[in-house]
């Protein structure tokens, strides 16, 4: 249904601030548009994005309909230890998507 792409540097030095990019395919239907018959198209958006680093939350974004289709986010975190950076998107109509990436810190 939704497919996500994440870009995390595979290696980093300890304490380095790394940049993470995420993109997920999703229409982000605003709920303000109408179809040809004038009926309102129901809202279908991603409401929440959470990034966790070895289980600890490092960044979160609460999205509203004003976010463009296929939400794209670039943010940072500190490379503290080797492990997994996990991403979760949740939204309308029971949407829940997850993705993760491994990072080696030395």
């Amino acid at each position: 249904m939704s497919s996500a792409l994440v870009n995390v540097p595979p290696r980093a030095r300890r304490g380095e601030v790394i940049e993470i990019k995420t993109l997920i395919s999703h229409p982000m239907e605003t709920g303000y548009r109408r179809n040809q018959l004038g009926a309102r198209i129901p809202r279908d958006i991603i409401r929440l994005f959470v990034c966790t680093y070895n289980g600890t939350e490092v960044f979160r974004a609460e999205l509203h309909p004003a976010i463009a289709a296929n939400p794209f986010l670039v943010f940072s975190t500190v490379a503290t230890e080797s492990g997994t950076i996990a991403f979760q998107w949740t939204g309308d109509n029971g949407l829940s998507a997850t993705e993760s990436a491994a990072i080696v810190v030395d």
Partner: protein
Amino acid sequence: MDRETSRRAFLRAAATGLGLGAVITVAPAHATPEAMEDAIRKIVGSSRVSKGRVKLELPPLSENGNTVPLTVSVESPMTPADHVRAIHVFTELNPQPEVVSFRFGPRAGQARVSTRIRLATTQTVTAVGELSDGSFWSASAAVVVTLAACLEDA
């Protein structure tokens, strides 16, 4: 026969459209600068919002309001004692004033985020930064939009 039904369908659709049009004139289809003020007030409470510290980067002219690149950042050491807790983005004239809220902790390293937003029309975008000492800072940017976002059919 076929022509007749399509005419009927068209008239019905037109009538529905008219009815909805009447509803729109009662309730405006977009927010107002006052609605944005209210939305900001809801986040900051009674605290004072000062200008500065927040850097909001948006193109001054956007050809497509459906996807406008936005970068927002706040200079901060991002230590447990002194970091940016959140950045909230608002618009004046979109259907609703809230755009996005980013939440950080010291683990974020730096308070800088990029994304793409929708703008319904030419308007001012405001970002409000919330610091760990409880202070609020803001920055605004005006964007001219030549193709408006998302209120028509795709």
